[in-house]
């Protein structure tokens, strides 16, 4: 309707450092970067398991004992845990369970899922390593 472009609107481009504007954004970027470590760790783990498949269980465990691999695994674990914690919290926020008039809170989903994580992790470690 009408010639509304005589003075065009001022378009502003988002700056590459947008995520430094506040804490929430920064935490979000860290969470996104964790995917890099998860991907790298998967490759490392696949290689390790392939050693077991083509050689012996001992070669797999030796690979795991390598200090560089241990170091990397710890770093990857920290990032993966950060992702897991934020993810479980989000799950709780997205799908709360209704009890009477109130809903479950996200931290409750976080705690529940962390407990499940510990159980499943223990089972995996027992199956692969301790047995």
């Amino acid at each position, binding site marked *: *309707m*009408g*010639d*509304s472009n*005589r*003075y065009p609107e001022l378009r502003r481009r988002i700056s590459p450092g947008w995520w430094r504007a506040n804490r929430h954004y920064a935490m979000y970027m860290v969470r996104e970067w964790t995917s890099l470590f998860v991907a790298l760790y998967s490759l490392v783990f696949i290689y390790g398991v392939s050693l077991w498949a083509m050689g012996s269980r001992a070669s797999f465990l030796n690979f795991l004992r390598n200090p560089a691999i241990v170091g990397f695994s710890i770093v990857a674990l920290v990032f993966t845990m950060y992702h897991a914690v934020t993810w479980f919290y989000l799950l709780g926020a997205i799908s709360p369970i209704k009890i009477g008039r109130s809903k479950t809170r996200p931290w409750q989903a976080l705690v529940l899922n962390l407990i499940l994580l510990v159980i499943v992790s223990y089972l995996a470690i027992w199956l692969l390593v301790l047995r």
Partner: protein
Amino acid sequence: MEHHNHDIVIVGGGAAGLRAAIAAVELEPKLDVAIVSKVYPMRSHTVSAEGGMAAVTREYDSLDSHAYDTIKGSDFLADQDSVEFFVKEAPRESYQLEHWGCPFSRDPDGRISARAFGGMSVKRTLFATDKIGFHLLHTLFQTTLKYENIRRYDEWFVTSLLVDDGRVEGVTAIEMRTGELVTILGKSVIIATGGCGRIFRFTTNGWIKTGDGMAIAYRAGVPLKDMEMVQYHPTLLPNTGILITEAARGEGGHLLNKDGERFLKRYVPNKMELGPRDILSRAELSEINAGRGFDGPYGSYVHLDLTHLGKITIEDKLPFVKELAEKYVGIDPEHEPIPVRPGQHYMMGGVHTDMHGFTGMPGLYAAGEVACVTMNGANRLGSNSLTECLVFGAAAGKAAAQYALKMNSPSFGNPVQGEAMTEEKRIFDQLLKHEQGERIASIRTEMQDSMDKHVGIFRDENSLKEACRIIGDLKSRLNNGIVEDKDHVYNTELVSALELDFMLDVAETMPYSAMLRRESRGAHYRTDYSKRDDANFLKHSMAYKTAGPPRIDYSPVTITRWKLEERVY
């Protein structure tokens, strides 16, 4: 000058305007309807209505009961045939709104819930927690999006009506984005611009309620009816004037004075907090004047006590009240009473129309708060106005559509083009060009303060005379006002100046009408004539624009089945 052509031009995008648009295209899908609004429609002041909308939906209710409550609430100034039409159409309009998706609160059986409200003898106010206006407006607006033939001019400010040989043919409007004045022609025009609360300092109304539609109709020769009937709502937050809905009292809230007394037992012993708004506002002010109010930094107030309602009622039915109280006065209504005082809220008066929204001027219709049908008479019952917007919005839409189907398109020739050019000069060559003068804001503040003081809840001959004098003075001062912002693009100060110009014209009709009504009826209360005088004043005041002060004439009230009686609650 750029000009556009449509079948129907609707000025104002609130409940009444949107409903009228839908009614017109449903009557005849080929009609081309334009909605011209100075704000995006979701910002229309309908959005702030909280309590509910009244309609007869239950077996324990009846149309006669709703009609009687409304007529008695109006202090018998309502035109009874319009009220009968209103109560009959109200249920259908409510269900239609529900069909369009309005998220009403529900009873256990799945039906729309109804609550008690002031002046209503049974529970008939349908509600959506305590945000009915918000849900109603968004439902209507989103529904208009499905009709391709409803086109919108968002943020276009209408400045005048174009009239050719007594017939309305369109409007002139400033496109905010570019600052250009454009002519929008229509076979019929519907005014749905709402009330004029910003004429007063202490009001629930938002910034945009500046009586634009009333002024342009008034200037075109249509009378403004019953302008002395200004509704003061009993429960506004002090200072901000933010509305605390009547539903708070409908759900059981109490009004208390300084002594913790439910003082309404001395004013409306039968209805108490559910009495009509005019009586309650006067009661509160009387208590304050007698020294039984609380004193605060923003004036005296009384208490609205919801502490006995319980957490569940407040959370389920009054969540917005809780939010507003906590945010703006720092009070949790579950534990403390809310400070409230009466203030301007609604205009019963407005552009004269019949019950089909027709103003008497060929091609011109009006609906909603801007119109005075009148079904609200001297005092409106709470929750009737949203239904009023739907019923009379639909009626005006249909009437305007039927008229448009019979007429040819107006052409952009003389005299319409000449009128538009004159209008352009008035705004851009005169108003905008002043280099020195008084600030718009100072003239506006003075108008608002004087209206609050002299045309308030209690009036008398002297205060009204003073108001007439002050308004006249302000009008001449505005001629020498300055608009500091000289831009064309999005000039909100120019718009404020034009709005002030409208407001002064509309404001002038109030004390003149009030001065000549030497009685007290409904919301119009005179300390020098405190009784209702049916023998002399059972009639509507009609204010006509002249070169000088408004000329006040009268028209009769239509009485059908309900006899006059003393208004006691």
